[in-house]
């Protein structure tokens, strides 16, 4: 009998614990189920942590039932991280991409088409500079909203220009090469360009060279004019007119070289200005000139915000996007990061303030809103990275002396056509 009561007590204890555990689990599950969550992944902008916390706090007021998580990854880590999250079935709801990476995701069905949202919330579409908003259109569908924008421009060292007897920025490609060669003496070189994400492409485009045919199905760059342009670039690289690090460096090296004060011109996008100015005490409005590249051609390298197809809460993600691209928040971002956002009202306010506070920076940023009808180097190609990989190493082969211009372009044409399936 005693044994029976002991056993019964044990059984009751076990049952009580089990019921308590199940209740706790049910309660927590239902609590979690009521609380939704979205996450957003940004590209190398961890310096804006405070801003993102403010975004999250603001959104919490609008949607108290939604938790927001922020993640940030550096550029080289971003694709690896995002792809692994997609494969795991847990993609961030909102992603911020740079350059042409969004195209691969959109073409593979990885991003939500924002066109219906933009149609429904027409006032959101009207916020933006249409040329920049159009940077994220693929097969007539708009996949992203502008987060912050940039395109290439020419920076030039006025002191080196003066020493070489030059005044004013070059107006065409021939002048560009001529100026570069004149400034190349000893340790000094004439020109640098950034080379990632097609940022050098304006050097070809300003000469009328097209990468692909109008239907984007075949390479179109292997022309006598392109050979002539590449020959000029080879010659300038050999005689010091163009610094070799233009073709082999990515960000720190070319910008650092210009900041050192030994390079006459730099073709880079607007964020480079702030990096260079941070490194170069010599930079002020008397020593640094700013201009569009000859012909006004520029490669955009903007950041966009999109919604992952795997998002479980795309409508909530859209609400969040609407909030962060509003005038209030884009002005905050512009103020803190010294960027433009393609939000028309916000950019106007930012530039008006900046012209008073930091005229040189304002001059740089002003170029980002000029000649936006001359954006180049951003083709709507799903396999953009593969085409880049097929094309650019051949350019390197030529400018670094391994092949002639004609050979390099011929080989590049073969490889690009292979990627295009032609």
């Amino acid at each position, binding site marked *: 009998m005693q044994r029976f009561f002991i056993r019964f007590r044990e059984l009751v204890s076990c049952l009580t614990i089990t019921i308590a555990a199940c209740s706790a689990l049910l309660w927590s599950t239902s609590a979690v189920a009521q609380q939704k969550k979205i996450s957003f992944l940004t590209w190398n902008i961890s310096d804006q942590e405070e801003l993102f916390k403010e975004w999250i706090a603001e959104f919490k007021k609008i949607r108290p039932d939604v938790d927001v998580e922020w993640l940030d990854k550096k550029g080289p880590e971003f*694709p*690896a991280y995002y*792809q692994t999250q*997609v*494969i795991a079935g847990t993609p961030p709801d909102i992603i911020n991409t740079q350059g042409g990476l969004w195209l*691969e*995701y959109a073409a*593979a*069905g*990885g991003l939500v088409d924002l066109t219906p949202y933009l149609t429904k919330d027409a006032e959101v579409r009207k916020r933006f500079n249409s040329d920049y908003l159009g940077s994220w259109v693929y097969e007539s569908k708009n996949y992203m909203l502008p987060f912050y924008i940039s395109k290439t421009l020419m920076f030039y060292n006025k002191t080196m220009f003066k020493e070489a007897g030059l005044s004013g920025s070059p107006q065409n490609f021939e002048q560009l090469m001529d100026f570069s060669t004149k400034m190349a003496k000893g*340790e000094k070189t004439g020109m640098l360009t950034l080379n990632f994400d097609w940022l050098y492409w304006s050097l070809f485009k300003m000469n009328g060279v097209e990468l692909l045919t109008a239907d984007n199905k075949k390479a179109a760059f292997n022309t006598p004019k392109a050979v002539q342009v590449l020959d000029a670039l080879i010659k300038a690289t050999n005689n010091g007119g163009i610094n*070799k*690090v233009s*073709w*082999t460096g*990515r960000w720190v090296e070319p910008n650092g*070289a210009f900041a050192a004060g*030994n390079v006459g011109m730099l073709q880079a996008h607007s964020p480079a200005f702030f990096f260079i100015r941070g490194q170069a005490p010599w930079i002020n409005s008397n020593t640094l000139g700013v201009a569009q590249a000859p012909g006004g051609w520029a490669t955009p390298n903007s950041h966009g915000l999109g919604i992952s*197809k795997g998002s479980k809460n795309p409508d909530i993600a859209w609400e969040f996007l609407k909030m962060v691209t509003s005038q209030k928040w884009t002005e905050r971002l512009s103020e803190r990061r010294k960027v433009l956002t393609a939000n028309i009202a916000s950019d106007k306010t930012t530039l008006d303030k900046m012209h008073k506070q930091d005229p040189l920076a304002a001059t740089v940023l002003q170029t980002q809103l000029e000649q936006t009808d001359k954006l180049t180097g951003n083709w709507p190609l799903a396999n953009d*990275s*593969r085409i880049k*990989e097929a094309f650019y*190493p*051949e350019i*390197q*082969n030529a400018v*670094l*002396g*391994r092949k002639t211009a004609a050979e390099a372009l011929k080989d590049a044409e073969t490889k690009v056509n292979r990627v295009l399936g032609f």
Partner: protein
Amino acid sequence: MSGLTSIGPNISPSTRRKPSAASPGSKARRELILVWCFLFPSLAVFFLYRILPLIWNLVLSVQKFSIFGQSEWIGFAHYWALLDDEVFWMALKNTLLFIASAPCGIVIALMISLMVNTEIRGRNIYRTIVFLSYPLMTVAVGIIWRWMYDEKVGLFNFILRTIGLIDTPLAFLQSFELALPAVLLANLWQILGFYMIILLAGLQNIPQNLYEASAIDGASRTVQFFRITLPLLRPSLFLAFVVGIMTSFTSFDLVYVMTQGGPSHSTELLVTYIYKAAFELSRIDYAATLTVVQFVLLVTLTWLGNRLSGGEAGAGRN
């Protein structure tokens, strides 16, 4: 109710236990179960994180894989595509050159080990200095060497120009001919210390009485080296060689920091190309194919190394 005369519990004859020692068979089985219970967690982790990814990698290599949609079976199409891929052949060639540099490093490390194994003054300091490079982060090593190779402000160009060997600076990392040797040198510098430690440990395990006995028999230093030192160092040499091969296959960080595989893939290794294929070109299936090729190469080379060193990781034929 006949037959039940015992005082104890009623037990029928058929179920009465036979008095016995524990049967050897059941004891062995219990021990085996115990061994498997202890092994199982590690084996499970090994299977989950090593075997399963290998199998999955193999499956990926025969698919057209999309991270966003359905995958489809395409057979060996990726393997055929490898044959036409110039970058793959370049990466393979560079990886083999990296591997071929391992014996050079081992020879240098052996010379250093022999020196610091003698009774010279300050040998501990020399050992420390040589080994210091190994624990450094490879990224830091890459950055340091990149600056030393810099065309404008680099140490090497400064030295070479000062002593009059060159008139114009050399763009080491922008040169198709010099970039790979430059990276190889940086790699060698870093790993030399580790080779030295392995070989030094091997040298110190060789019984001194063998040298004494051979000296009595009139053997010269050279004969001692080739007849005693080298054969008994075989396991250490094998280990150093395997480490060298592994480094060649895993030098992603050094190459990525110094040259990103450029200029124009002239310093591309299989491992960097795998990364680019997977994460820059979004071709995870093709990257899986490259990984399979790299795996086969690695296993083949390790097997060859084992055979050349006498089998059993260098311990055979002793």
